[in-house]
C-alpha cells in the first residue's frame, strides 16, 4: 500500500471500481433486509437480547424486516449507496422491550470486536457512565485494526457523545453538503469529521423512502467512505485511515 496513492484517490471514482468486500457492522434499530436497495447487501443479522441484566447477541434469519423504527434501515442505505463493496452486518441494539440502550450498545460492540467486523457504524450515543467499558472496547478495536465511526450527539449536552468523542473512534458531525462523498475534517476537535447529514434521502422499511436529517445520517457517509478506502487499500491501519480522511477532506 502506497500512502501517496491513497491521498490521490477520487472517492466517487473509487465507488465505481470493483473493490474487496468490507464487513460493516451497523449497531442500530435493526435493518429491513427486504428493501430493494438493501437486498443481498445484508450478510448477517443479530439482535442484542437482555435477560436478568445480562446482554447477549442472538443470530437472526435473513432476509427479513428487523427494523421497527426505520432508523437503522436509513443508516444502512447511506453506507450501501456510497460503498458497493460494503457487506452490512445488522446488529439491533435498540429494541422494543428495553429502555437501556447503553448496555445493549456495549454488548453489540463486544460482538463486533469478537467477530472483527472491519468497520462499525454507531449512529447512537450513550450516557457518560458507559465511558469506561466503551473506552476499553474502542481502544481494543483500534489495536485490532477495526474502525469505529460514531455520530455526535444531537442533544445539546455538555459532552459530544460517547463513543464519538473518543480518540480511538472517528466522530462525525453533520452539515448541509452537496455530495455524500464530500466531507470536512476539523483539526483539534473531538469530533473530527463533518459529513452530509441534512435532508438525506434514505431507504425506509417496507420498500419505501424518506428524507432524514441529523448526525445519525452523517456518520454512515463517513462509514461508507471508510469502507471504500479499506476495499481499495485493505492494509490501512486506523491511524493511516484517519490521516487519509484528513488529507482527502474538503476545506
Amino acid at each position: 500500500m502506497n500512502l501517496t496513492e491513497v491521498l490521490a484517490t477520487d472517492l466517487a471514482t473509487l465507488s465505481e471500481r470493483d473493490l474487496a468486500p468490507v464487513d460493516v457492522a451497523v449497531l442500530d434499530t435493526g435493518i429491513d433486509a427486504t428493501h430493494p436497495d438493501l437486498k443481498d447487501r445484508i450478510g448477517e443479522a443479530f439482535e442484542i437480547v437482555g435477560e436478568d441484566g445480562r446482554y447477549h447477541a442472538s443470530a437472526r434469519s435473513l432476509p427479513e424486516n428487523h427494523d421497527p423504527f426505520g432508523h437503522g434501515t436509513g443508516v444502512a442505505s447511506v453506507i450501501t449507496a456510497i460503498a458497493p463493496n460494503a457487506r452490512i452486518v445488522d446488529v439491533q441494539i435498540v429494541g422494543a422491550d428495553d429502555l437501556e440502550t447503553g448496555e445493549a450498545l456495549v454488548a453489540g460492540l463486544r460482538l463486533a470486536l469478537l467477530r472483527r467486523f472491519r468497520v462499525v457504524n454507531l449512529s447512537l450515543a450513550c450516557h457518560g457512565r458507559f465511558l469506561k467499558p466503551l473506552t476499553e472496547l474502542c481502544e481494543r478495536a483500534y489495536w485490532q485494526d477495526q474502525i469505529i465511526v460514531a455520530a455526535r450527539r444531537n442533544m445539546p449536552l455538555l459532552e459530544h457523545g460517547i463513543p464519538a468523542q473518543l480518540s480511538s473512534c472517528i466522530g462525525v458531525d453533520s452539515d448541509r453538503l452537496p455530495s455524500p462523498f464530500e466531507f470536512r475534517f476539523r483539526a483539534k476537535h473531538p469530533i473530527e469529521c463533518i459529513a452530509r447529514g441534512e435532508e438525506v434521502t434514505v431507504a425506509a422499511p417496507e420498500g419505501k423512502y424518506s428524507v432524514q436529517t441529523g448526525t445519525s445520517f452523517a456518520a454512515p457517509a463517513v462509514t461508507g467512505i471508510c469502507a471504500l478506502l479499506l476495499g481499495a487499500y485493505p492494509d490501512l491501519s486506523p491511524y493511516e485511515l484517519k490521516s487519509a480522511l484528513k488529507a482527502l477532506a474538503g476545506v
Partner: protein
Amino acid sequence: MTDSSTLLDRHLGIAAKSPEQAVLQLLIELAAQVVGAEEGSLLVLDRSQEPPRELVFAMTVGSGESEGTLAGQRVPVGEGLTGLAALTHEVQIGAPTYEGVRQAERGEAVPGQPSAVIAAPMLIEDTLVGVITAVSFEPGKRFTRDDANLYARAASVAGVLVDQRRQLDAIDTLRDPESATKGGSEPERLEREITGAVSRLVRASPGRLTEVKRLLAALEALTLGRSR
C-alpha cells in the same frame, strides 16, 4: 390548550395551575412557534409501570382539534419517532415515508401523515421523564438541524424544571415529613419519603456522619448487588 393537570401531577410532580405548569406550556408554545410547527405536545413517561413501557400525552398546544383529543392517549416506547427519542435519549427528526425516491425528494404531502415531526427527550441526568414533540402538516415542510437543536434545548430546560420541582419537594419533605405522602405517583412518594428519612438522619447525627456514610454505603452495595 388541553390542561391534563392530573397527568402532569401524577407523572412529573407538576401541580395544576402552578408556575411550573405555566412555564412548561409557554416553553412548548414558544418552541413550536419558533420552528414553525402547528402543534406542540408534551408526553410523560408512565412511571407507574415497572418497567415503564408507555408515554402519555399530557399537554398539547396549537391545534384546537388535537388539544381536545390527544390528552391521555398512550404511545408505546417501542414505536414511532417519539418512542425512538425515548429509547435513544436523542432528539429525532421525522419525515413521511414515500413509495419512491422522487416523491421523497419533492416532499409531497402524504395523506394521514404529518409532513414533519421533531421528538426531543426530557432528561434528568440520564433518566427519561418525557418527550416533547413538534408537528407540522404543511406540505413540503421539513425541520432542520437548527430546529431540532432548538427543540432539544427546550426539552433540556423542561427537564431541569421538573428536576427543580422534585428537589423543592424533597426540601418540603424535610420541613414537613407528612407532605412526603402527598401528591405524585407511588414511586415518587416513596422516593420523597426515603430522601426525607436520609436527610433527617444526617441532620440528627452530626457527630456520627462517618458511621452514617458507611451504613448507607453498605445498604447501597446490598441493594445494588441484589438488583443485579
